[in-house]
């Protein structure tokens, strides 16, 4: 093939591709010889690149992708770790690809193809020449053993993911049978094999990895229209999926404690051989004559539609064990049988993937059931029934509904582990790039939290950890000079507390410097020069918008997000964040979150005839004001003095435009709510009690208002409105307080 300088194609390389190249560059900055960090992300970005096939791209680009694919596969195949050489080559590659991407618009010639890169010019050669599994077909079947202790978590994920992938493959095959050229489907099957390969490679499961690799190669050719789909290929895919399915199920069985640690053997050499033949463009050794699938239920392949319904006549692949031709593999085969037996029993346990919308509606309905149940129980006519048996039955009903509710709620709960463990990698990368030594200690990873919250917790945590490593932890020499150990420690913990969850992130770094914060805050115009503030108030200024203490913007921190964003994220989850800091000894962030977003602890307050719900988490205190506690400023703004601090009042009834009952302020109740820095005293008529309420969206009609955060069905079946505390606290009060001077002095 003609190598070097073809004319650059106009606008062939899509901008997303350049972005991926950039991301690979970022990952490359952190890879270390002998480590596998970054391997999977790079692999994924590379896969993305391989899939971004916008217009025509320069041949050098395609070749570049191919050669990188070879290297990455080589690493995944082999040690799974980067080496000096592979890092150097990947870095060169990154530079080369960047320049290829750049050269395009100007129409300049392409950079020269580096000579020492293995020739990836010849398409048909790539797979065999780069990937060392080429000979495995002639060898004994590979066995692979799981490292259950170390990889338990990953294996579980891999198992679950693989089951999905296999399903994708099988469904895809069904489509291909009637429409063999459907590019979308071919692509999805390709991607499924590829993802499988990546996962297996990461877990050093060589046999399934190799198999997936071969199948992927075939699919890739199909994808590029270099090979067309025929019955032999469909057979091959199904056979491959079956074999991978056997691996997956065996892994699943071991994860459930059956025969842990025993090697898993699934014959793959024949399929690999066929795949190679197919990749070479041979029609391949014809698969063995059609045979009825012995109905032993091992195959995960779905029952195919009747043959006449299929455009490409296909016979289904037969089970492998009997047809595995390599006699040398026989010795390795006996373990197959036990694996199959365990498969039969796999129906116990396991997971179901569920649409979250269904889950939400289940939770909703159960909430309604609880309400309906209490309506029945509270009904006066029902209460008049005097029958001990009936009372027992009602109690039984109540117990079942409440069990049902907690089960339904628990279905939304996931451990914070996932979110926490991602931070380990982050800390390592940040520490390496910042020339610091940092260890991350995790505690309470098993603490469960609403899935939606865990998902949204990631960003704030990342940002706080960045801050901690970049600005909190000192460089090793500075730490030693201060009499600390060279290695800094960051602790990330989660625990249940007061019906919510507390997440704490603390470090033993230099802490926040109140004096510097003060200077900065004055500089930024956040506080006045003569503002009297104690240290904790000063420290809390870091949550103010427009505040950032970062003096040097590092490559990872300082991306324009400040702690104010962190705080608004947390508050978006109905949570709170606080900071404590001791200069020189470290700082600690405490995040208080509700267990779930679906239910809140609410305070039901009465205003006139209306009832409103205020989230308990935002209530600081509530009290009946004494005469003289409320004063008026400029005859307009009312403030209440709470423990020596003046808090502005907001008369809720007037603000909402609804009638109130309390004749004077002394008859009313003041509920002090806070959001961020601001607090405000809401004047309500009465407190009606605390209760847990299931939050209901108010829907499209009310989406443009910010007065209400939602609604809830109350015990009597009517709707209570949940006030948006943030709005109440931030709304200007002055205009509403006009003409109330007399009231406040009453």
């Amino acid at each position, binding site marked *: 093939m003609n190598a070097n300088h073809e004319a650059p194609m106009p606008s062939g390389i899509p901008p997303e591709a350049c972005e991926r190249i950039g991301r690979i560059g970022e990952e490359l900055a952190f890879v270390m010889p002998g480590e596998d960090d970054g391997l999977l992300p790079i692999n994924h970005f590379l896969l993305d690149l391989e899939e971004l096939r916008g217009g025509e791209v320069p041949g050098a680009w395609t070749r570049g992708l191919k050669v990188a694919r070879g290297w990455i596969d080589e690493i995944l195949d082999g040690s799974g770790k980067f080496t000096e050489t592979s890092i150097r080559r990947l870095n060169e590659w990154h530079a080369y690809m960047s320049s290829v991407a750049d050269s395009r618009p100007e129409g300049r010639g392409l950079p020269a193809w580096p000579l020492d890169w293995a020739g990836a010019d010849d398409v048909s050669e790539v797979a065999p020449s780069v990937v060392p599994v080429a000979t495995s077909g002639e060898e004994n079947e590979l066995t692979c053993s799981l490292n259950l202790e170390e990889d338990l978590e990953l294996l579980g994920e891999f198992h679950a993911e693989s089951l999905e992938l296999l399903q994708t493959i099988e469904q895809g095959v069904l489509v291909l049978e009637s429409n063999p050229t459907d590019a979308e489907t071919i692509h999805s099957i390709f991607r499924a094999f590829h993802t499988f390969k990546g996962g297996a490679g990461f877990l050093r499961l060589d046999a399934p990895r190799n198999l997936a690799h071969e199948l992927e190669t075939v699919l890739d050719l199909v994808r590029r229209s270099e090979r067309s789909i025929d019955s032999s290929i469909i057979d091959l895919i199904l056979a491959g999926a079956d074999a991978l399915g056997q691996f997956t199920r065996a892994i699943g069985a071991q994860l459930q404690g059956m025969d842990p640690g025993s090697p898993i053997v699934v014959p793959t050499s024949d399929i690999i051989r066929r795949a190679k033949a197919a990749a070479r463009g041979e029609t391949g050794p014809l698969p063995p004559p059609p045979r009825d699938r012995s109905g032993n239920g091992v195959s995960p392949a779905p029952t195919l539609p009747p043959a006449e319904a299929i455009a490409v006549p296909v016979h289904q692949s037969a089970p492998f064990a009997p047809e595995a031709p390599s006699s040398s593999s026989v010795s390795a085969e006996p373990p197959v049988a036990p694996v199959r037996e365990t498969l039969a029993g796999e129906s116990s346990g396991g997971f179901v993937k569920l649409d979250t919308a269904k889950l939400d509606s289940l939770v909703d309905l159960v909430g309604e059931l609880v309400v309906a149940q209490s309506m029945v129980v509270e009904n006066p006519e029902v209460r008049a029934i005097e029958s001990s048996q009936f009372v027992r039955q009602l109690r039984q009903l109540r117990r079942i509904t409440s069990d049902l509710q907690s089960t339904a709620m628990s279905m939304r709960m996931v451990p914070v582990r996932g979110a926490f463990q991602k931070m380990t990698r982050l800390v390592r990368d940040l520490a390496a790039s910042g020339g610091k030594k940092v260890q991350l200690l995790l505690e309470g990873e098993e603490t469960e939290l609403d899935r939606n919250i865990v998902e949204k917790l990631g960003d704030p945590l990342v940002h706080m950890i960045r801050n901690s490593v970049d600005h909190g932890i000192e460089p090793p020499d500075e730490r030693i000079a201060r009499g600390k150990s060279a290695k800094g420690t960051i602790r990330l913990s989660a625990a249940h507390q007061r019906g919510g969850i507390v997440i704490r992130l603390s470090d033993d770094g230099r802490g926040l410097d109140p004096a510097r914060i003060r200077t900065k805050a004055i500089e930024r115009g956040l506080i006045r020069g003569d503002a009297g503030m104690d240290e904790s108030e000063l420290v809390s200024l870091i949550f103010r918008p427009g505040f950032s203490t970062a003096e040097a913007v590092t490559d990872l921190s300082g991306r324009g997000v400040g702690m104010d964003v962190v705080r608004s994220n947390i508050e978006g989850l109905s949570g709170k964040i606080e900071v404590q800091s001791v200069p020189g000894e470290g700082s600690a962030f405490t995040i208080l979150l509700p267990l779930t977003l679906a239910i809140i602890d609410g305070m039901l307050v009465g205003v006139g005839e*209306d009832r409103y719900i205020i989230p308990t988490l935002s209530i600081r205190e509530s009290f009946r004001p004494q005469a003289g506690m409320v004063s008026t400023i400029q005859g307009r703004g009312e403030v209440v003095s709470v423990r020596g601090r003046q808090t502005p009042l907001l008369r809720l009834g007037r603000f*909402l435009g609804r009638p109130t009952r309390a004749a004077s302020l002394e008859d009313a109740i003041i509920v002090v709510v806070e959001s961020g820095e601001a607090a405000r005293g809401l004047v309500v008529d009465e407190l009606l009690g605390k209760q847990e309420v299931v939050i209901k969206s108010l829907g499209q*009609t009310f989406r443009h208002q910010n007065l209400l955060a939602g609604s809830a069905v109350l015990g009597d079946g009517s709707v209570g409105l949940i006030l948006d505390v943030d709005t109440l606290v931030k709304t200007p009060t002055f*205009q509403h307080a006009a003409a109330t001077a*007399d009231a406040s002095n009453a």
Partner: protein
Amino acid sequence: MTTPSSNPNAAFAKSGRYLTFSLGAETYGLPVLNVREIIRLCPITPVPRMPDFIKGVINLRGTVIPVLDLRAKFQMPEAIYGDRACIIVVQLRNPAGGSTLIGAIVDTVEEVVQLNDPQLESAPDFGGAPETRFILGLATVSGGVKTLLDPEKVFLTEGLLSLAPPPSAEPKTTNA
């Protein structure tokens, strides 16, 4: 510029089945396909600071849905709703997918009628005074005229959505 219809914006009324109901002395109709159910008038939780045609929200078996007052929406005089007053729950498809339920209070629900092309005509142009943008068309049935409403336009218009200005000028407070 002139189109056969005097009201070029109106989605034309199609023959089909309509649920008819009354507001005062007038009769209106909504396409049956948009009517999810009819429920008895129940306590409505008022939503503060909303335009007055939004009566509030109700709990429809666990789903909280807004309820509109069509009289207020059409700027008709307010009336006390009697025993026969109902809430018609209308289901509207969202452009973004999914659907929205909205209730409308009416004086009485009459019947479901089949209306065919000869009975239907487009909304007349009043020159602006009575608004015709909510109207699909008019139907003449046994001597009476029924106004057929366009559910999308009646229930999903811009007007519903924004917060009313703070009621600062509100004179009364019981506690002053």
